């Protein structure tokens, strides 16, 4: 049934990318000057792609909805970026990074893409250092590394807890150089409203200027979608407020398959929800699990006493605490992958051991790390390592140097001092592994339309390992797309400028205007957020950390009903010709209301558990996820067919040539 062409090159795994690069068609420097490319989004993937394509000589038009490309949500990534440099000499290699990523993704990613990712990872670090990205260094002046979940080596490069910021500013600076040269035309505060397809090829977009509401037509020879993930379908997530699925969803409705939407990462260490007013959730970097130990009390009476304030967590001794990750997974302990850590936290909280008022929080405790570092420092400085006050002070200094900004952020939000009392954390929606289906060249099922970074589905399978999102965004943008796009564009060297004065642009523009007018003229009774919150609740309750047939079927019906109610009763104030955030949000929520249903459908049909997708019907007696390789070793690419519930499934079978598919164990 499948007509999906993954276009993975022939040959041994380690040589595929090199061979492919040598054989694909190129566009000459002179011809690049007459080719236009549109890039939507300026996170790591979009910014790095824009800069590189412009350096190569293409005319690039880049769009972002924020007031500056530097604001894209890659900026909020904290912990780090992986690369198989083996600077620590701990046995790392391209193969090991590839293997860890495939295994971490629970054998649901495309092997050749993941190998390529591991292969170019080392170039990324070299490139970023050359751009002046200030990574952490040791006293010898060399780059420092730390360890992340699901791996047994230290391969993560970092810049305190602001790695995403530093990498994005690096890519932004590369863009600025090209903007100054006139090779990138930057459209800030512009939102892509639709894709324009001419004779089966992506040839432009319709955009809306968010300041004055003007609808604009932009043409190009290729369109690159780099607009990130769709975590905000849950309303509460660690995504930025503006993060949305709309660009990906628009191309889906124009013919791009949407793949594995149910693969969503629920990150284990986020600040718990404090009340109904909550607008978003805040992540505490996974790097904290290098030094923090996760626990809940062993006895329910202690839990009750803590909740009522009669007991403090620090009053409980070692024997009264259940370090449940260390207990269940001795080999990886607190550094198990994210999906495993999140489910384990949920399991304890569901059993009644949650430590805050809502019962949805566990402790992340730094007391041991503070003591360990403090003693080390006391020894180094020749001071008394048995003086507990001194040790605590010295240890706190070390922890502050490593995680200072994260601790400060926690204190500002929760109003508790995490140096003195353990942090409270709970899982939250963070990243979406699913996304637009792409082939090996990162092209979607629409010729000339590409998807890169979190917006595509290809590299992380059913679960992403920490510090891999930054790696993928930059790999796609700096080192993959700029090569592969030339193969497609080599057919376009005689095409000349694409006119926007065609029936295709005309009709796409008209549809956009009609949709905007219908929101403004609706004059309903409920705000956009009213619907977004309702959708988020359905998603979290029925498509969240664990899923079952009954809940997913209900979710599909409830989301459809909510969508119908939205179109009848939503109220959007103001006009379409002004700065109108509610109007922009209405369009985004409308798309989430469709995606949510496809998400539930995808989760319903995949009756196995894998990675971030946990089906209650498919688990081992110990409650671990049970994969079904016999029936589900494929990616689910959905073709739009009028309604999300009617989407047509195309299966891309996953073939593993270089590794043996095994049960994923971190015990």
């Amino acid at each position, binding site marked *: 049934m499948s007509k999906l062409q993954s276009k993975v090159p022939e040959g041994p795994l380690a040589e595929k990318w090199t061979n492919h690069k040598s054989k694909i068609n190129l566009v000459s420097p002179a011809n690049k000057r007459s080719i236009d490319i549109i890039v939507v989004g300026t996170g790591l993937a979009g910014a790095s792609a824009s800069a590189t394509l412009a350096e190569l000589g293409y005319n690039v038009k880049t769009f972002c909805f924020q*007031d500056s490309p530097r604001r894209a949500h890659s*900026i909020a990534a904290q912990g780090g970026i992986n690369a198989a440099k083996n600077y620590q000499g701990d046995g790392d290699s391209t193969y090991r990074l590839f293997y860890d990523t495939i295994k971490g993704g629970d054998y649901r990613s495309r092997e050749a893409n993941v190998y390529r990712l591991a292969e170019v990872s080392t170039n990324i670090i070299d490139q970023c250092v050359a751009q002046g990205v200030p990574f952490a*260094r040791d006293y010898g002046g060399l780059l420092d590394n730390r360890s992340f979940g699901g791996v047994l080596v230290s391969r993560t490069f970092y*810049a305190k807890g602001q790695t995403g*910021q530093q990498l994005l500013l690096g890519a932004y*600076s590369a863009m600025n150089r090209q903007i100054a040269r006139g090779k990138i035309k930057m459209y*800030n505060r512009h939102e892509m409203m639709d894709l324009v397809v001419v004779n089966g090829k992506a040839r432009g977009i319709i955009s809306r200027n968010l300041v004055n509401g003007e609808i604009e037509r932009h043409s190009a020879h290729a369109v690159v979608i780099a607009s990130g993930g769709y975590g905000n379908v849950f309303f509460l997530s660690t995504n930025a*407020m503006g993060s949305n699925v709309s660009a990906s969803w628009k191309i889906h409705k124009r013919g791009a398959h949407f793949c594995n939407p149910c693969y969503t990462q629920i990150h284990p260490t986020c600040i718990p929800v404090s009340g109904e007013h909550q607008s978003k959730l805040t992540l505490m970097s996974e790097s904290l699990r290098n030094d923090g130990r996760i626990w809940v009390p062993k006895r329910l009476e202690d839990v009750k006493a803590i909740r009522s304030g009669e007991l403090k967590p620090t009053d409980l001794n070692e024997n009264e605490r259940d370090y449940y990750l260390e207990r269940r997974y001795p080999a990886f302990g607190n550094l198990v992958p994210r999906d495993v850590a999140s489910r384990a936290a949920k399991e304890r909280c569901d059993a009644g051991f949650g430590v805050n008022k809502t019962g949805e929080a566990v402790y992340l405790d730094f007391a041991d790390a503070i003591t360990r570092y403090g003693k080390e420092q006391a020894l180094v400085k020749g001071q008394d390592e048995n003086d507990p006050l001194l040790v605590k002070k010295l240890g706190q200094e070390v922890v502050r140097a490593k995680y200072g900004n994260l601790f400060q952020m926690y204190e500002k939000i929760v109003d508790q001092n995490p140096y003195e009392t353990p942090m409270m954390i709970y899982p939250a929606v963070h990243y979406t592994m699913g996304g637009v289906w792409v082939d090996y060249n990162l092209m979607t099922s629409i010729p000339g339309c590409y998807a890169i970074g979190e917006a595509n589905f290809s590299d992380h399978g059913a679960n992403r390992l920490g510090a891999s999102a930054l790696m993928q965004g930059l790999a796609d943008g700096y080192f993959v797309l700029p090569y592969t796009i030339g193969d497609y564009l080599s057919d376009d060297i005689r095409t000349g400028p694409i006119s926007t004065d065609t029936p295709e642009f005309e009709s796409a523009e008209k549809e956009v205007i009609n949709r905007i007018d219908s929101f403004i003229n609706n004059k309903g009774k409920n705000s956009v957020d009213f619907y977004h919150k309702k959708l988020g609740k359905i998603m979290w309750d029925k498509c969240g950390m664990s899923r079952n047939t009954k809940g997913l079927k209900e979710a599909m019906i409830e989301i459809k009903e909510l969508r119908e109610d939205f179109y009848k009763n939503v109220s959007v104030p103001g006009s379409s010709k002004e700065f109108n955030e509610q109007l922009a949000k209405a369009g985004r929520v409308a798309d989430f209301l469709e995606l949510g249903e496809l998400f539930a459908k995808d989760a319903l049909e995949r009756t196995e558990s894998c990675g971030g997708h946990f089906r209650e019907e498919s688990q081992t007696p110990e409650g671990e996820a049970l994969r079904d390789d016999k029936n589900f070793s494929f990616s689910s690419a959905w073709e739009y067919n009028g309604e999300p519930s009617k989407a047509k499934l195309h299966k891309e079978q996953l073939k593993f040539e270089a590794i043996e598919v095994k049960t994923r164990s971190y015990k």
Partner: protein
Amino acid sequence: MDLTLKIWRQASVDEDGKMVDYSISDVSPDMSFLEMMDMHNEQLINKGEDPVAFDHDCREGICGMCSMFINGEAHGPDRLVTTCQLHMRKFKDGDTIVIEPFRANAFPVIKDLAVDRSAFDRIQQAGGFVSVNTSGNTQDANAIPIDKHNADKAFDAATCIGCGACVASCKNASAMLFVSAKVSQYALLPQGKVEATDRVLNMVKQMDEEGFGNCTNTGACEVECPKGISLENIARMNSEYLYASLKG
């Protein structure tokens, strides 16, 4: 908590603005300032009124998109936070809170509390980069060891989020802290040294053309900077500028 809000309302850049009074009740001390603004907007929408426009995105203090001048201070009364991380527990029941946009000639108001900070982008475009192509053929990242003290200082300068609080806090609307943070980051790293002369001259020239004022060393910018960018960077930029001018 029950509060009175005095908010700057301005329909667009071409129209005059004014302060408008609102009252809001049942504000939780655990809310962030922007969540309080969300709640206020939800009430305005339900009454059929125009919600207050303001910029925001990540809501975790790193994207630099939120602004707001609250009770006479950029990002409000708390230190080392952006408005999105300011929490209502910093206010008392019955308080009156005055909320204005970041004001500077170089930051024209778009609507209400949202301003146009694209001048910052243009300054970065004038020289805030290292001219290296993304070929993947650069030398190994560990080929040039960098003194940890310099690397740390470069990092501290590089943590600027480009929010514009320094400009809004300065009586001269000077952008010296912002510009010097970028100049310093590259001046402290070997990768940035090659272009140091042109960089500082071009960035300062663009800063002046955008209409930012001069620095008179009051230090208000450093106090209000949510990322604690140090005045030391301005001193470094001045020295870089002097050196570049003499070398010229």
